[in-house]
Every structure is written in C-alpha cells, then in structure tokens.
C-alpha cells in the first residue's frame, strides 16, 4: 500500500454528484475536476456543499447520483480507507490523532502489519525522509499533545503522504493556523504539486484561495457555479460568484423606523477568548439603537458566536463592557444580562437555546422558572405552566401535538418558534439573534423574519448575526462585517452591495479593490 509518487498521476473527475440528506440536497449535480499537479480550490459559503463533496470523494458518503472517476476509471469507494488505498487522502478540520501517541505511531496507525509489534524505527526513517523532502518540520518521536495545532496539521499531512496519497484534500486548513503557519503550509502544498500530486483546497477565504490555487471551483447552494483559472479572476469576481447575485430579495417593510441614536445596546472595546483560550473577539465596539436591526455579516468562526455569548452573559469578556439601556451589565453573568433586558437566541437551538429532550412547556419556562407565577417557594406550578404554554403555542402557531411533547420531535421551524416565543415573551430591550433561519424551510423563514421585524417595530434593538446575505439585506438597517474577531466594516444597508459585503466577509478590503 506504500506507493511511490513516480507511479501514474491522478486526475479526479466527479460528474453530476447528487447527495441528499433528510430535508436538504447538499450536492445537487456538482461537476468537479482536479488535475495532477495543481492546487484546486473549492470555494463556497458554509452550507454550499464543499464538505459533502469531499466526503463523497473520500468514500465517507455514497453519492445518490453521479460518478467519481480516477483517470477515467469509474470508482466506488466504500470507506475512506479504500479511497486512501487508491491514493486519495484527506486532512480534516478536526484532526484524527491519538493524543497520547507519538507522531510516528499516529502516522503508521492503521497500517496493515503482519507482526504483533510495530516496527517504528523503519517508519521513523521514512517519515523523516518525507518531512525533509517537503520541509515539514515535525519531530517523529514527539507526542501529539505536546504539539501546537499547526504542527498537528503537519502530522495529518505527513500521515496522508506516508500512506501514499496522490490527491490530498484539505478542509479549511487555515482556520486553525496563524498567518505565518498558513504561509508555511502554502509552501508545502506548492512543493507537493510541483512533483505531480494534486491538492484540493477547501476554503471560503478569498485571499488565501487567490494566493495558493491554480484553479478555483465555486460552489453555491449545492451546485457548481463555475471553474476558473486563478490568474484570470479577482477576489471581487470570486465574491460575486460565491454569494450569487441572481436572488432577488425583498426588503421587509417596517412599521417603525429605526432610532439609531436612542442606544439600547452598547458594546465597548470588548475582547473575548474562545473555548480553547484563543482570542476570538478583538476590541469590538458597536451600538444598536431602539427599533434598529444591526446585522453582523461574516463567515462562521470569525468570533461571532463568542461575541453573541458575551452579550448574552454566557461568556465573560476579557476586556471592555456591555451596556444595556445605559446601565453596565456585570460581565459574564447570564441572569444579570437577562434581567437587564438582553435576550439571546443562540445558533445551536436544540442543545443550547433549548433542551431537546425536554417538553415544550419545560422549555418555555427555561428562563422564567425562577419567577412568580411560574414557581412559588421553589415549587413549580404545573397548572399555570401548562396553561401559559398552551396560550403561547396558540399565539405563535407552534405545530405540536401537545405541550408535553419533547422539543426534539418538532420540526425545525417549530423548534425555532418555541425558542423565539420564549424570548419575545420575556419582553427584552435587546435581542441577539444568531443564524435564526439556518436550516429552516421557506415558510418558516418567512415567519421567523416577520417575528424579528415585529420585535424591532415594537422598539427592540436587534443584533442579527448571520452568514446569509439575503437575510441580512432583507432585514438589516445597518451592516457590520466581522472577520477574524474584528469588525471591518460598518455600512448602512441602503448603501451596501452584496459584492462589497461578500468581499469584506472574505477578508478583502474595499479600498484596495476600488482602484
């Protein structure tokens, strides 16, 4: 299974790939071809179908329709292992390494070996040779837990090379890297293609795609938009292709105009770290006015979730303050934030905003169960809870057999209705809403958006965090763009264009493109 690169080079062709999941068509007739000796970027927004396509290629998913061929021979991979034996290796976003093992042990893991004991010395030699050849600096005897994330990624690349990968797929490899590490990675990738290997580089960052790719295939909503030579395109064109311009969006008519000068939420100079302790939010300041919908556009993972959690009190800011109705909210205190009038609709509805296994009525009291009349002397008053739940279900038109049905049995749209109903009924001054319509069908999307507009019309300041430009343009009064933890644009919705926002989301700058 250890093959030498001097063997036949591989051209990967995927034709008419269709992959459906319950309720979604993730790939809808995708055509894709990657030739030997090129870095081929797969560009698209989250949910465009990039990861599904690569999972089809590596045999993790079986396509519902369409074919995968290697050098014109149609192949069917049952598992990533079979794909790797045919020369297709993948480096996932989340590494698959055993922390307590050494680099060498991780690399030879899974190798078919006839003897009981692993012969690591020969392996270490081969690994060192590969590492020197591609200038990948890794100590084969180091243990994984001792390595930085960037080094762990190099181990994954070495692992794929060691097992004879001629086609290497990297799923958003720079998401975990510093800019310097990313540059080093690009060098490695270039030296791999220079000797006839193929690199498929999945990303939604325009700059790095332009920096590393030879050709770019843009996916949007599960379809191939176009495959273009990197040399003949610009970040601006890529942004347009990636977000699409053909969708016509209707701006929602508002009953009350935004009053941006009557500030209800002020975020001042806030820093925050993510779950792994890296800085995710970098000195962000923003304001939301009464009846104003302020959208934060950005590709997921640029610090939006952390920012939303800081405002909601779930995550302490490491610096800066949150002010609601001119009063400073104690840092990182959920209940204080709730009392100050902050409502938070998290992106993970089923497991953060709601308790999936619990009933509709138990979920409706998640934030009010401490207060009268829901509870008295620490005892929950079931009759009142049920009566209120019935009222809410009716008022917000939640489709559920009864109020004791577990939330996880409801459809996505009804789940979101329950969550929004609870949050609206808490009569907030500020709502932080993350990806409120992701995964919902058209009818449900319309309903959720209408509810958000109603809230804004009634005076609530809404901070809408979304990757969906259509949604942002339909709802927002003002658009901020978040990239790598900072806000890099603040544009009134009336003056913004999809291209300019898309460009900023990919880390481009407006002024550079203007000349």
């Amino acid at each position: 299974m250890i093959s030498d690169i001097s063997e036949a080079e591989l051209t990967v062709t995927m034709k008419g790939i269709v992959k459906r999941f319950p309720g979604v068509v993730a790939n809808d007739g995708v055509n894709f071809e990657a030739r030997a000796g090129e870095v081929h970027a797969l560009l698209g927004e989250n949910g465009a179908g990039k990861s599904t396509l690569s999972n089809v290629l590596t045999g993790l998913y079986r396509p519902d329709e369409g074919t995968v061929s290697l050098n014109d021979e149609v192949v069917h991979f049952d598992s990533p292992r079979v794909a790797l034996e045919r020369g297709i290796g993948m480096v996932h976003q989340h590494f698959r390494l055993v922390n307590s093992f050494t680099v060498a042990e991780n690399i030879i893991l899974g190798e078919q070996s006839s003897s009981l004991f692993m012969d690591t010395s020969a392996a270490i030699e081969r690994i060192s040779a590969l590492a020197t050849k591609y200038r990948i600096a890794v100590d084969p005897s180091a243990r994984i837990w001792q390595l930085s994330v960037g080094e762990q990624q190099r181990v994954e690349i070495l692992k794929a090379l060691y097992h004879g990968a001629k086609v290497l797929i990297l799923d958003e490899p720079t998401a975990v890297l510093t800019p310097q590490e990313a540059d080093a990675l690009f060098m490695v990738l270039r030296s791999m293609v220079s000797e006839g290997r193929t690199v498929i580089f999945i990303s939604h960052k325009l700059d790095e795609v332009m920096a590393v790719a030879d050709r770019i295939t843009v996916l949007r909503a599960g379809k191939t938009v176009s495959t273009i030579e990197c040399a003949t395109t610009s970040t601006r064109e890529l942004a347009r292709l990636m977000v699409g311009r053909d969708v016509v969006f209707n701006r929602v008519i508002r009953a009350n105009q935004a009053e941006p000068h009557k500030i209800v939420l002020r975020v001042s100079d806030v820093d925050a770290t993510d779950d792994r302790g890296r800085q995710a939010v970098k000195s962000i300041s923003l304001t939301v006015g009464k009846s104003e919908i302020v959208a934060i556009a950005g590709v997921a993972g640029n610090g939006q979730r952390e920012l939303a959690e800081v405002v909601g009190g779930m995550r302490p800011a490491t610096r800066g303050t949150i002010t609601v109705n001119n009063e400073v909210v104690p840092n990182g205190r959920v209940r204080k934030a709730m009392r100050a009038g902050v409502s938070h609709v998290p992106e993970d509805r089923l497991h953060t905003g709601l308790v999936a296994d619990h009933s509709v009525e138990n979920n409706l009291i998640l934030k009010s169960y401490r207060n009268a009349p829901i509870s008295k002397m620490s005892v929950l008053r079931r009759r009142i809870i049920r009566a209120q739940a019935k009222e809410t279900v009716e008022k917000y038109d939640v489709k559920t057999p009864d109020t004791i049905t577990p939330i996880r049995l409801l459809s996505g749209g009804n789940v979101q209705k329950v969550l929004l109903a609870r949050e609206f009924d808490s009569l907030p001054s500020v709502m932080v809403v993350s990806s409120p319509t992701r995964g919902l069908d058209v009818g449900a999307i319309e309903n959720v958006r209408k509810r958000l507009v109603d809230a804004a019309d009634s005076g609530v300041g809404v901070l809408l965090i979304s990757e969906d430009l259509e949604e942002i343009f339909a709802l927002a009064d003002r658009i901020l763009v978040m990239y790598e933890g900072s806000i890099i644009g603040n544009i009134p919705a009336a003056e913004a264009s999809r291209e300019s926002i898309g460009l900023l989301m990919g880390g481009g700058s407006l002024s550079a493109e203007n000349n």
Partner: protein
Amino acid sequence: MQSPLRLERRLTQPKWLNWGVPLLSLLGALILGGIVLLATGKNPFSVYARIIERGFASTDAFSRTLISATPFAFTGLAASVAFRMGLINIGGEGQLYLGAIGAAFAGIAFQDQPTAVIIATMIIFGMLFGGAWAAIVGILKAKFSTNEIITSLMLNYVAAIFLDYLIFNSNSYWRDPKSYGFPTGKRLVENAYWYDISIGPIAIPFGFVVAVFVAVIVWFLYSRTRFGYEVGVIASSPSAARYAGIRARWKIITVMALSGALAGLGGASDVGDFRHVLDAKGVQISGYGYTGIVVAALARLNPLSAIFVAVFIGGLSNAGYALQGPDFPSGLVGTLQGLILFTAVAGEILTRYRIKRQNTIADGAIV
C-alpha cells in the same frame, strides 16, 4: 463486517415500556436462571417456588424481606438521585458504611435518651456522615473535573478500611471493649432499636416507612421543584444550563451530598432495624451499595419504583439466606441476581433503541 441488525434510537418512548420492559427483563432473567439451575441439576420450578415461599409468601417471611429491602431502597434512591443528573455515583457502598458509622455513634452516644430522640439522631448522623463522604466526590468533580466514577469507587475501599480499623484495629468509640477473641462493635441498648409498625399481621420496619416517605419526597423534589428542574436541564444539556444561567458546580456538590445522605440513611437503617451494632463484616458482605445501582437501573431511576424493586431484591436475598445450604450454594443466588441485572441493562437499552434491519450504509446519513 456489517451486522444485518442495528439499533435505532426511538423517537418516542411509549408508556407501556415503563412497566413492560422491566417485566420482560425479569422474565428473561428467570428463564436464563432456569437454564443455569437445570445445568446444575436443580428443578427451576421448585427453586422458584421456594424463593417465593421464603421471600414473600408468609407474613413472617415478608417482614424479614422488608428488613432486607430497606437498605436496598435507600441505596437505590441514592443511585437514582445521582444518575438523574448524569452523576455516576458508584460510591453508595462506602457512603452506606459511613452512614452506619454515624448512626452507630448516635445510637451509642444518645442511648439514655427516649427512643424517638435516638432514632432521630441516628438518622441525622447517618445522613450527615454519608452525605459528607459523597460530598468529597462532588467537590473534586466540581473543582477539578475529576471522574466521579473513579473517585466514588475508590472511596468505597477507603471507607471499608476505615470501618475495619474502627472495629478490628483500634480501641475506637465503636468497639466493644469487652469483646476479646473476635472484636465486635458496641451493641446498642434495646431502647435504641427502631420501631416496627404493624399493619395487620405484617411488621413493617421503621426504616422501610422512612424509605417510602423519602421516595415520595425525592419524587416531588425531582418532578415538582425548581431544584429538580435545574437538575434535569443540567443532565440533558449542560450548554443549555449555562445558557439559562444555571450553575452546574453547586448542583454537582449538592446532588452528590444528597445521594450520599440517602445511602448513609441506608446504613443507619441497617444498624437501627436489623443489626443493632456496627457490624464491620456483615455490612460489607451484604453489598447494599452496589446492589443499589441494580435497583436504580431496574426502577429506571424512578424513586417510587425503586421501593418496589427494593422489595423484590430484598425478597430474593432473604430467600437466598433460607435457600443456601449444602445442596444450594450461595453462588447460585448471586448468579440469579446477576442475571437480573444483566437483563435489566439490556432491557434499558431497548427502551431507548429499537432493533432494525440494516439496509445500506448510504442510508445512515452522517451529517
């Protein structure tokens, strides 16, 4: 490599599963036990008939069964209370020893008081000792995220050694100074024996009455109060708990202490109802704490069901004492009990999953 059958998560759990599955589990255990009995040359029907006769059929036997059942009820409740928050407290055994130590202390120290006062202090000290012992586990988990399975299990051994030390290796407050050859604990005065409450011909031990009372309180606590609601949210979704501003750390400590206090109460009842002495060997041989896990599993963590399951297990072990002899080794009783646990756990999986024929891999969408 692929099995043609696979487990699929049930979307809903029909109500009948709550009683149907335990009954089927029991039936399965009896059938498997029957095979074992046949293999050892015994007639399963006559053995089962004797179990029913010695465990449940006469008023006298039933009273003894209730005495055996009481510690099981408490350790079963203790396990349920912790498991419902996802805390795997394996330390009921050690917490029960500490409860017995605490109760024996109170029984000796307050022996001149009226019986009611002695019983009350025995209960309080039993709960305090057991609860404090379990709180160690809770504090370690809340502060340092240690694995409660390991710490609670290890503390069982510490508790056992401590118990042995008090009776066999020291002249402690608990040891009877007059016992020379084989050291024993100080015997409680008769005034400190717990009451029996007679209903018709059946004498119900006081500890069992307390167990029923506690089960109702636990049921109310977990299904009708803010405390229980918060425990449920933490158990089902820690991130939702964080989102709602529920502090999991304090709950971990409180619930562990509560669980330990209930196990400790089991130790107190064993001293007050049954042994009337801190019997270091006797309390360890019974394995009340570990069996409590079985009780909780069979009761599907429902505190009220735990009482019924405890009576059943108590009857089995009571009948076991009566059965064992030259023709019936005690190991067979243990085998029967083990088979019941085995089928109970298997049944528990079937309440959450159903068995389906496997089609192709492509059907199992991994999103």
